[in-house]
């Protein structure tokens, strides 16, 4: 029995061992399962870490690249810095230039202000000149009104010798007629009547100008000297352009342009002939001084005396009419010769009664004389412009001993063809 007991004990012990083994196996399985889970978790964690490492490596590479780039930029920066340092002298020079520029600008401002003041002064002078011009025109018109009806042209002033001669003829004629009546000799009365008529004409008709040339000279020279001053101060050294006359009643005008190539005068507004200064700030070719031609009044008188309206005159009749008007009607010239070509015109006028006046103008107002023309030259030019109906540029107006030589060129014609 003991054996059995022993065996039983051993069986129990075995069963207990088996149960323990089962428990251990179960525990082992659990542990294995747990280890598997942990292992998987670790694997996952490892994979995550690997991916992080990969990302970090990539970032590291990028950082390295950017560092290399930054290094390169740093080198470049250093180079640039060196270059910038080299620019310092240039900067100093630029600063100096800017300072100089500022000084120049300030100086230019000052000059500009001075110019503005000068311009204002000139404008006020122009206003004064225009006022004087108007006054002169008014006084001239008044004088003409007062003088013309009394004297006519030529104004009456008979020299004493002519007067005495006329009275003597009249007295002789009357005495002869009386003697013939008393003596009954009719033919003698005829001679007496002739003597009487001749004496009457000698008394009535003037053979001397009522105004001595010296007096004319003294009267006009101051006005022309003022014009001369205006030309000197205001007008540039350009040639005068005699403008076209569009109507028979128009006053011939002459333009002294600012530039050598003025715009076509048809484009210049000339509606108001009292304008003296034509200013176009956008186009200097349209700017200049506008004068009434110095010979316009003389031309009007010539037309009145000769009865010829130059506006209606044919081109081929111009020279004859001009010669007749200046030599016979006005007697301001003793001879006139002219040459009219396609490009211009040349006139040679021999001095007449107003020779002294021409000389005085050439001496006292050389600009007026040479650039606008003296009244005699200007009258001839105005007549030509009025007949030919074309603008003309006064190339030259020379006043030699006893002669006026006028060279004209049609506006738009090439230069130096008339010479």
């Amino acid at each position, binding site marked *: 029995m003991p054996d059995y007991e022993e065996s039983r004990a051993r069986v129990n012990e075995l069963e207990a061992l088996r149960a323990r083994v089962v428990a251990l196996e179960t525990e082992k399985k659990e542990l294995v399962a747990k280890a598997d889970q942990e292992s998987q978790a670790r694997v996952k964690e490892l994979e995550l870490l690997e991916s992080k490492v990969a990302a970090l490596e990539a970032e590291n590479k990028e950082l390295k690249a950017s560092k290399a780039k930054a290094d390169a930029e740093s080198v470049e920066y250093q180079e640039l810095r060196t270059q910038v340092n080299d620019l310092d002298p240039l900067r100093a020079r630029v600063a100096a230039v800017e300072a100089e520029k500022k000084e120049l600008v300030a100086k230019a401002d000052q000059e500009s202000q001075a110019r503005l003041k000068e311009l204002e002064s000139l404008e006020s002078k122009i206003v004064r000149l225009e006022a004087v011009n108007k006054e002169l025109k008014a006084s001239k018109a008044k004088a003409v009104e007062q003088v013309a009806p009394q004297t*006519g*042209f*030529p104004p*009456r002033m008979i020299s004493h010798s002519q007067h005495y001669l006329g009275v003597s003829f009249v007295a002789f004629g009357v005495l002869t*007629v009386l003697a013939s009546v008393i003596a009954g000799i*009719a*033919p003698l*009365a*005829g*001679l007496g*009547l*002739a003597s009487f*008529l*001749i004496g*009457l*004409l*000698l008394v*009535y*008709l*003037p*053979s001397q100008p009522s105004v001595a040339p010296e007096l004319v000279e003294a009267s006009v020279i101051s006005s022309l000297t003022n014009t001369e001053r205006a030309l000197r101060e205001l007008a540039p050294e350009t040639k005068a352009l005699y403008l076209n006359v569009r109507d028979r009643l128009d006053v011939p005008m002459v333009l002294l342009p600012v530039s050598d190539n003025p715009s076509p005068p048809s484009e210049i507004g000339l509606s108001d002939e009292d304008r003296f200064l034509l200013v176009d700030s956008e186009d200097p070719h349209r700017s200049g001084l506008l004068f009434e031609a110095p010979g316009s009044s003389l031309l009007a008188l010539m037309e*009145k*005396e*000769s*009865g010829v309206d130059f506006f209606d005159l044919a081109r081929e009749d111009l020279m004859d009419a001009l010669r*007749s008007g200046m030599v*016979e*009607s006005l*007697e301001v010239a003793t001879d006139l010769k002219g040459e009219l070509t396609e490009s211009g015109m040349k006139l040679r006028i021999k001095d007449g009664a107003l020779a002294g006046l021409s000389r005085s103008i050439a001496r006292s107002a050389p600009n007026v004389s040479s650039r606008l023309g003296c009244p005699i030259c200007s009258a001839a030019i105005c007549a030509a412009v009025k007949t030919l109906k074309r603008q003309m540029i006064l190339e030259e107006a020379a006043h030699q001993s006893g002669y006026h030589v006028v060279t004209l060129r049609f506006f738009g014609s090439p230069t130096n063809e008339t010479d």
Partner: protein
Amino acid sequence: MRLTESYILFYAVTILLSGLLLMGIGVQQIEVYYGVYLIEFLAAVTFVAFFRRSLERHLGSIIIVFLLGFIYIVAQRILQILS
């Protein structure tokens, strides 16, 4: 020589020559002399007025005096004929 001087000289020579001519042919009537002088005067005025219109205007008063004299002569002749 100025135009007016030329005119006076021309007229003086003309009327003196015509007066001598009329004397030479024996004209006795003062009216004939007057008429001839007037015609010559008007012709000379017309000629000179071609160059100078103002001279014509200026001579207008003399022309009127001449014409009044001519009218007087004509009237006298008419009265003579009528009587």
